[in-house]
């Protein structure tokens, strides 16, 4: 008998999913006027809840509530008082972290070890961090008396539903703005739990409004006349449409879009840690990460060794039930996303790249894709250029640091990059040459609220996190 890990499922009893949810407007849950839709669990396809859809009228109500709260309460409150609310929210997130983590894993499909150890703690850290800024804005470097923008319309994606909510709401509120936020249609549940947390924290009504719905709802929010600031995280296509929609208006916009990051491994890299970094770069969160290291650039002289180690490491990855504490890779978030990953992977194979996945049994129900690498990929392959947003890695080789820079930068995106080398001087030189918003050295996919995050080129504009993250919410 071998060492077979017995199932170790996290209990679902800590969450209480209602059969239906309304919209959170002006501090209360109200019925939506649109056509309600269902949120399902991507790991089982079970229907979790029916969720209201906000139409133009609902959006108008929410923006009005946000405007009222802005004029009457939030913009007049001292920074120290706003900070108290944010600290309170941060503490409640910590207290209810298990509930949030389980709900996130059920609704999104990500492994509980990630929602428990990354998403929820980092979200709480974000609220703590920006709570600290609320009464220090005049020292942030944006003038002696920076003012809030007003009402922020925020649209967030499904890959890190709760963490992206924190990235959006914490700095907005700290700066004195009120918000209307739309979670993604496939992952609305933790945002709705956040609405309850706002009630629990006695946040003044209207400061945070949560509207559920799909693309039309998001469009109504960003194009509403009384929205002063638009913040979006999601695909480059939608980001482009938003940029067009708000062009010529007074609205300030920040966009955090797609990526096709290069994870660059030199021949003097700490190879075992580099392999971990490659795995973490592309298989973390099923590769549903805008800054995922989806292009492995490995120096030709060590390519064979690195790939052999990578394959061995990949065969220890555990794919399956997101609530099992030993799961490394969970479910693909939706049937639609799974179809896209399959399509691009099939194209990669048809274009002649070598496809490899470890042997792994995938569950019968739900949306699953095995961790996959493509070798022999060249810059001309579509899988080397297009964002797959799944657990699929394209392996490209290079010969010299200069060639590594050229290949890494040869993409319309520029969100992140990783450099693996024991030679500090070269790492610093590379970092100065790479056109990417975040450059990791001997690590990957590390996030901290104090560190700004954002893209070059078609990966978007504006920065979130850190002191820089305040700028988008101040004038």
């Amino acid at each position: 008998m071998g060492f077979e890990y017995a199932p170790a499922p996290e209990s679902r009893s800590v969450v209480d999913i209602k059969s239906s949810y309304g919209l959170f407007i002006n501090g209360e849950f109200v019925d939506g006027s649109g056509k309600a839709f269902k949120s399902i669990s991507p790991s089982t396809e079970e229907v979790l809840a029916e969720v209201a859809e906000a139409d133009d009228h609902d959006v108008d109500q929410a923006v009005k509530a946000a405007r009222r709260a802005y004029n009457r309460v939030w913009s007049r409150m001292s920074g120290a008082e706003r900070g108290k609310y944010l600290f309170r929210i941060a503490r409640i997130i910590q207290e209810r972290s298990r509930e949030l983590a389980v709900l996130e894993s059920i609704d999104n499909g990500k492994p509980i070890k990630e929602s428990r150890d990354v998403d929820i703690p980092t979200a709480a850290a974000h609220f703590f961090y920006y709570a600290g800024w609320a009464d220090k804005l005049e020292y942030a470097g944006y003038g002696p008396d920076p003012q809030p923008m007003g009402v922020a319309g925020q649209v967030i994606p499904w890959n890190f539903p709760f963490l992206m909510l924190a990235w959006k709401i914490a700095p907005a509120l700290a700066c004195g703005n009120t918000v209307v936020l739309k979670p993604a249609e496939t992952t609305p549940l933790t945002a709705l739990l956040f609405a309850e947390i706002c009630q629990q924290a006695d946040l003044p009504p209207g400061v945070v409004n949560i509207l559920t719905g799909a693309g039309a709802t998001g469009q109504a929010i960003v194009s509403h006349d009384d929205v002063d600031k638009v913040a979006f995280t999601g695909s480059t296509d939608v980001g482009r449409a938003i940029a067009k929609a708000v062009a010529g208006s007074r609205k300030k916009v920040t966009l955090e879009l797609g990526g096709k990051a290069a994870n660059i491994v030199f021949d003097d890299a700490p190879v075992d840690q580099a392999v971990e970094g490659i795995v973490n770069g592309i298989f973390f969160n099923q590769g549903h990460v805008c800054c995922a290291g989806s292009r492995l650039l490995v120096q030709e002289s060590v390519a064979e060794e690195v790939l052999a180690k990578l394959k061995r490491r990949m065969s220890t990855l555990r794919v399956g039930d997101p609530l099992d504490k030993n799961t490394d890779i969970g479910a693909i978030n939706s049937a639609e996303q799974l179809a896209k990953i399959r399509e691009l992977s099939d194209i990669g194979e048809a274009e002649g790249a070598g496809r490899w996945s470890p042997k792994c049994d995938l569950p019968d129900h739900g949306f699953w894709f095995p961790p996959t690498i493509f070798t022999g990929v060249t810059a001309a392959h579509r899988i080397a250029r297009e964002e797959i947003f799944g657990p699929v890695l394209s392996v490209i080789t290079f010969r010299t640091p200069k060639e590594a820079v050229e290949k890494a930068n040869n993409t319309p995106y520029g969100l992140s990059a990783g450099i693996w080398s024991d030679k500090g001087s070269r790492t610093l030189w590379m970092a100065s040459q790479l056109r990417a918003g975040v450059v990791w050295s001997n690590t990957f996919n590390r996030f901290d609220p104090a560190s700004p995050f954002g893209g070059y080129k078609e990966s978007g504009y504006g920065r979130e996190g850190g002191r820089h993250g305040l700028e988008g919410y101040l004038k």
Partner: protein
Amino acid sequence: MTVTSSTASFLADATSSDAALRRFLHGLPGVDQVGAEQRAAGLGTRSIKTSAKEFAIDLAIRMVDLTTLEGADTPGKVRALSTKAMHPDPADPTCPSTAAVCVYPDMVPFAKETLSHAGGTSGVHIAAVATAFPSGRAALDIKLADVQDAVEAGADEIDMVIDRGAFLSGRYLEVYEEIVAVREAVGDAHLKVIFETGELQTYDNVRRASWLAMMAGGHFIKTSTGKIQPAATLPVTLVMLEAVRDFREVTGQMVGVKPAGGIRSSKDAIKYLVMVNEVAGPDWLDPDWFRFGASTLLNDLLMQRTKMQTGRYSGPDYFTLD
């Protein structure tokens, strides 16, 4: 790399001179401290429950080198320890025995007496620390005499310490040749090479020491004497497990790993087993290839074992002291 005569000669070349050995050891890939510690911590979050936990606890008991290395050791103490090694839980005959007892050379006869009194069928090995343990600060001939003494008294495993002074001053060939000499002196006994990683300090040093000891013919590489803090840690053991894994890739030979010192709870022991399983691979999940140098760990394993079987925790009074 595959096993070929060229890799064999390549390893022989590496030990042909001090300069060649230095080039080889310093040419090994570096270890990033942050990354190694992150990986070890990540493996530590595995949740081992029910049947997996039962399996792991019994395996861990079978891997214990039950140890007493005190100035105050007496024949009585060693007899008690050896008896416990054979029957860790006298109330439960299904409880496996430990892998070995680990004592100073002069205590070997008393361990042997007790273990062979049982007809020699216990399967419990006798490990003796030697080579001027724990500091290793003695002349080579004295170290070899120490080894000789232990082997003649009946030890079938010798736990030697490397000369950390020579290692840290870069005299790698000296360390290598000393291990080779001890390996010759142990005869048919198995040789475990102790690095005292708490003194080597960096993971790069741990990786170099691992390769040095494996190339010199050590059967096991071992973290610590237990006399220096920190003793065994998960990241240090991670680096050593990577080394034995890579060494097999190159030479086809398996080398065992023994973390020793500071592992006191079942929970910790299970973290090590998870690491063995996922880093070196399941082939190492065997007392022939992985050991725990420990004393108090055994009773915690026994308490957890009883808890798994009865559903209740028993007090410490239900388990023997030694």
